[in-house]
């Protein structure tokens, strides 16, 4: 995520995670003008959501990404 931002490969990053370990990376990118949006499952991952530019709830529309079973 940082490498691609450094290369100027994106304007907005979408981060599908709830892991607060990623907060420093998001803050680092925010300081350099990269916008990261968290795709999460609130209230889980609040720390990361707070560090991100914005966040949205994946679970509400999860049927859009569900694959039919075998």
């Amino acid at each position, binding site marked *: *995520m940082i490498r*691609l931002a450094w290369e100027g490969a*994106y304007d907005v990053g979408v981060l599908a*995670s709830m892991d607060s370990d990623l907060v420093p990376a998001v803050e680092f990118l925010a300081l350099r003008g990269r916008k990261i949006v968290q795709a999460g499952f609130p209230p889980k991952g609040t720390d990361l959501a707070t560090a991100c530019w914005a966040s949205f709830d994946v679970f509400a529309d999860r049927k859009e990404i569900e694959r039919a079973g075998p």
Partner: protein
Amino acid sequence: MTAPAAQPIPAVPQTTRVRVFVDYWNFQLTLNEREAAARHLADFRFLVDWKKLGPWLAKEACGTVGLANHTFDGVIIGGGKEVQELGADLARSPTWRLGALSRAQAALRVQVPGMPPVDHRLPARRLREDHRVHN
């Protein structure tokens, strides 16, 4: 002789390039946990359509922040060995092989800690070159 009147340059619509980064285990396990709770089950495996996921997340994110124009520039799924196998499965799918790739499908990369990233679009020779660069 007078210079011809300058023609207005049509405005180029500004697009926002969006990349998606998926923390595979964190995402999959949380989804399983929430779905199990919603169904009042002890456990549930939510089957994610990984081809749809990236473009869908990009669209939802842009909708959330009110970005009208965006291009989906790829998804990187980070995780362990299982994620590498997922990438290989996608690479073997008929749509993938026929080259009828949408922009959405064209840029899935899989990253495994301690290993160079694997782009399942690329032929073996290019992959070797990529590895050299990353190593």
